[in-house]
């Protein structure tokens, strides 16, 4: 599979700024264009990763951004895939480039989020499981993260102290990242003393919801070569769906699939997402210099480490405890500081992961730099069977 070039990246700092999402997206887009050394009028294709909590402009975000930047006649697409929206937008842009239908694409995602728990979009919708799980069970997103965390404790003997150690590691990395929302190192004692939200997860184990914006300029390899400025390769984008029967309880479901008639697949969903990316890029976990994974909770980072093949199931805690996944370790996980330091700005998050990968692979991650980074993977999972993984290389 041929790659496309990442020519430029941009972020609007994560926070709780209380301004329209378009502002964050446009700021990130201008930064990405500046970084690529291109003008907005050079962009032939603009793809927006949608936000569903900001009215109609959010549902047609590609056009909203294009209008905000000034109509330039570029082709446009808008897409939503929950937490994987940004990766889906990348995949759409990449496909058009690889098909030879355009040379330069701009991908943008941004969100402005409300305070507190994510709640379903308004209105009575008894046919929507995302509405029903709140109505019937009061099952919030952290409740699902907590079910995975407790399961991990029972299966592998992970402890709340292990979870706290993930937060300590990520907060330290985030303290070095000027784009992160939370930039204060924390101690394990502070994590373990924070209020319990969904047993066994405490407030500081769970990622917040944030405002933020991210943008990436993609180009064909031939176009990038003609410019002669060097570039990072986007070598794979995996957006596979689960394989029946999915035996892990996923948000926002009430139940898993049944194994009564068909046995469980070889790889559970999260592992399958990463596997498809490795396969497409012709790489494996042994090639990685670093990884960004979706730490919606501290415990989930440990699950992801196993899902992306850094170690067999049940051994992530040991890698963490040995310092292997910290900055300076042999394979840093979430060197950006992760969701623990950013909070989640849904349509921007998968793009922000690629921004970190790109910064690392270009050797410009500053005090967070992973020395000699060559191959990097980012992975996430959203609701309703959307998830994604990307591989980028030098």
């Amino acid at each position, binding site marked *: 599979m041929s790659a496309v070039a990442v020519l430029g990246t941009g972020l609007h700092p994560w926070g709780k700024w209380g301004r329209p999402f378009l502002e964050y997206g446009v700021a990130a887009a201008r930064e990405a264009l500046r970084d690529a050394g291109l003008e907005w009028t050079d962009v032939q294709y603009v793809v927006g990763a949608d936000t569903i909590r900001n009215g109609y402009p959010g549902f047609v975000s590609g056009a909203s951004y294009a209008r905000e930047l000034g109509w330039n006649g570029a082709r446009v697409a808008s897409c939503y895939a929950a937490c994987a929206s940004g990766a889906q937008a990348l995949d759409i842009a990449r496909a058009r480039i690889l098909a030879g239908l355009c040379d330069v694409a701009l991908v943008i995602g941004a969100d402005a989020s409300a305070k*507190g*728990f994510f*709640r*379903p979009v308004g209105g*009575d919708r*008894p046919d929507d499981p995302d*509405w*029903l*799980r*709140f*109505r*019937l*069970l*009061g*099952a*919030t997103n952290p*409740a699902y993260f*907590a*079910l*995975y*965390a*407790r*399961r991990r404790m*029972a*299966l592998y003997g992970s402890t709340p102290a292990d979870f706290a150690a993930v937060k300590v590691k990520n907060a330290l990395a985030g303290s070095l990242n000027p784009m992160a929302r939370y930039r204060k190192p924390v101690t394990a004692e502070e994590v373990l003393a924070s*209020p*319990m*939200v*969904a*047993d*066994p*997860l405490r407030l500081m184990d769970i990622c917040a919801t944030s405002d933020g914006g991210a943008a990436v300029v993609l180009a064909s390899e031939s176009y990038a070569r003609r410019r002669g400025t060097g570039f990072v390769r986007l070598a794979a984008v995996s957006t596979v769906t689960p394989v*029946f*029967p999915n*035996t892990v*309880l996923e948000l926002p*479901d*009430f*139940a*898993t*699939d*049944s*194994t*009564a*008639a*068909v046995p469980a697949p070889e790889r559970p969903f999260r592992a399958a997402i990463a596997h498809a990316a490795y396969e497409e890029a012709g790489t494996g976990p042994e090639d990685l210099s670093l990884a960004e994974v979706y730490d919606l909770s501290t415990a989930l980072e440990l699950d992801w480490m196993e899902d992306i093949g850094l170690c067999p199931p049940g051994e992530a805690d040991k890698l963490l405890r040995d310092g292997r996944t910290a900055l300076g370790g042999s394979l840093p996980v979430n060197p950006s500081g992760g969701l623990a330091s950013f909070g989640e700005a849904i349509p921007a998050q998968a793009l922000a992961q690629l921004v970190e990968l790109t910064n690392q692979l270009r050797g410009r991650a500053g005090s967070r730099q992973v020395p000699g980074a060559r191959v990097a993977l980012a992975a996430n999972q959203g609701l309703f069977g959307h998830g994604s993984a990307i591989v980028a290389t030098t």
Partner: protein
Amino acid sequence: MTYAIDGWFAISPQDGVHLIGTRCTGCGTVCFPPRRGSCPNPRCPGTDMEALPLPRRGRVWSYTNACYPPPEPYVAARPYEPVTLAAVELDEVGIVVLGQVKGLTVDQLEVGMELELTAGPLADGPLVWMWGRAS
């Protein structure tokens, strides 16, 4: 009594509370919530789903609680008591089903422990299925 949702569970004086699932007449795949239309098994073209009561017992796959009142459309009791949730792997059919837990807190639960289906009211009245101590 009003049910918070129709057709997902039933209460009978003889056999107690059970969830209502569907079984594909083609391949035997069992589903909860009950499903209409196509079979979820991608290799099965079946569209004929028959309703069936699911096993009333299972083992805890995992559990948690909600220490803060969940947002609407959940109606939280006042004063608020943490809601306990359990995901329970049903005997025989290999499905894990999430539900509120009645009469047990997280400190009284363990992964692997046996629970039995019951029902209880939401704060605004209607009944929903719940997991309870196995009799």
